[in-house]
């Protein structure tokens, strides 16, 4: 019974071993240390072939760890809060900005005609009826309006770039 679970664990580790036998990194140690203090561990001892991590906490005979660079870390148990807890930060814009998305599929044109200036630039103030660009599909040019009020803070696509449905064209700050 207990034995079964060991087999499972062995597999898990054997799998790891075979997958990436690279060196271990400091974040790992940091999290191990965090685990130790959080759960009041007195010792963590991990090894694989040549590699070993040995960490001890609290009132224990401090035997030197095999890997000195790592051995320095544990003593003060200056456990930084586990980074693992944090969700990976999305490259999404701050919440207060409004996105103007492409309502169709086609080619983005910033100007009415090549000679003309762009409809809008970063800093331009727009109202819902402001034309911000044209999108050409099958030789037909569709004027796109802002449909919101504020100041353009970002132009997200290049002139004459192909845009899918829903591609973000501009970002607008409604509070600026």
């Amino acid at each position: 019974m207990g034995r079964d679970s060991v087999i499972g664990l062995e597999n898990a580790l054997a799998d790891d071993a075979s997958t990436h036998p690279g060196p271990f990194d400091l974040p790992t140690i940091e999290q191990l240390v965090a685990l130790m203090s959080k759960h009041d561990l007195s010792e963590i001892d991990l090894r694989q072939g040549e590699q070993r991590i040995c960490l001890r906490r609290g009132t224990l005979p401090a035997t030197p760890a095999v890997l000195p660079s790592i051995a320095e870390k544990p003593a003060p148990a200056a456990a930084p809060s586990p980074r693992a807890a944090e969700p990976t930060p999305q490259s999404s814009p701050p919440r207060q900005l409004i996105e103007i998305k492409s309502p169709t599929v086609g080619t983005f044109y910033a100007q009415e005609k090549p000679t003309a200036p762009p409809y809008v630039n970063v800093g331009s103030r727009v109202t819902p009826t402001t034309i911000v660009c044209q999108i050409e599909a099958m030789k037909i040019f569709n004027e796109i309006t802002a449909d919101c009020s504020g100041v353009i803070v970002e132009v997200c696509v290049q002139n004459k770039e192909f845009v899918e449905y829903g591609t973000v064209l501009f970002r607008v700050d409604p509070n600026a």
Partner: protein
Amino acid sequence: MFQRILIANRGEIALRVIRACKEMGIESVAVYSEADRGAPYLHLADQSICIGPGTATESYLKIPRLISAAEAADVQAIHPGYGFLSENAHFAEVCRDCKIEFIGPPPEAMHQLGNKNQARKLAKKAGVPVVPGSEGLIEKDEEALALARAMGFPVLIKAAAGGGGRGMRVARDEQTLMSGLRSARQEAESAFKDGSVYLEKYIEQPRHVEVQLLGDRSGNIVHLWERDCSLQRRHQKLVEESPAPNLPDSVRKKMCEAAVSLAKTAGYYSAGTCEFLVDKQNRFYFIEVNARIQVEHPVTELVTGIDLVKAQIRVAAGEPLPFKQRDIVHRGCAIECRINAENPAFNFRPSPGLITRWQAPGGPGVRLDTHAVTGYRVPPNYDSLVAKLLVYQPTRADAIACMRRALDEFIIEGIHTTIPIHGEIMRHPAFQAGQVDTTFIERTWMQPGK
């Protein structure tokens, strides 16, 4: 050969075309609506482009967006799959105008065959039997009587402006014909403000048998034998098979030849299907031509060994068919069960949603065409087909046994599917005896109570 193809469709048929492209060394460009965003099959395409919201009219049916995507991706051809724009002659013409090859029949043939009356005329011209009936409207009861006597009872009285069965009557003798004409005219008058009716031969409990056609641009048109698609529910096919059970070989041959001559008359090429009704006396009557690849095309691929989608692409690229009629041999028996996200226990109500477990059958004689996987969410926006389960065996009895076995292995959790009713069909003596018609499913399983 094309370097890059755009697939103007979704789901299993999009994946089917992607697979053909991969095997032919052609790059595939998939398009998708927001309802299909992130669907697993999209990752198998070389490129995928979002063309609109879930509503088909704003995405998969939106020609300008498809063309824009095609031009942006710089494809040489578009495969329309089935449904959506696949039989839209206008779309085919737009493609042509944009110098993009439409992988399908010529627009002219699509126009002709798309119109029921023109198609019927074409069939007659090609000497293909059609359902007998009055050429135009019935003015006097005497005409109706004469015609009914000529083609024999029972006959069907239809309102010209009719629809949904209103102004429709079945007459089994001269008496009921007279009364039927009267009541049909009244009903039509009150329903459509138009009492004009016409007459048609009524075919009782017919079988639905169709012939697979394939043609190239140099006029070589062949048939790939027939498929029996009699198992339908509300005109939705549930089970297809080839060969058609209990169909005399002479009838089978005549039907296939008729289909070819019709296709030739229409100047047809690429893949297409000619649908017939077959009555109890094995007389067949032309219904319509489906000018596209069909859902059930793998049935024919299994019994002929010919890849229809690859053939479509080659023909569109101008290649001649690599075979003649005599080279096409029909071997063994293939059956397809359509696995739909529907709940047969509740009158086949759609059952979209998250598939929490997907465990597919396998082993000898099994082919599975599906875009679904564990964790895939079936969107409510489109048709409910999630998989086509096919078997191929030397005999029909073997095929039925194999299909039973495969259905038993198939585990789908999170949504309801048509798997249970397919299990019942495969175990039903009438089906096993090949004694079914287009009314069989309704007669056997549709409880109006549910």
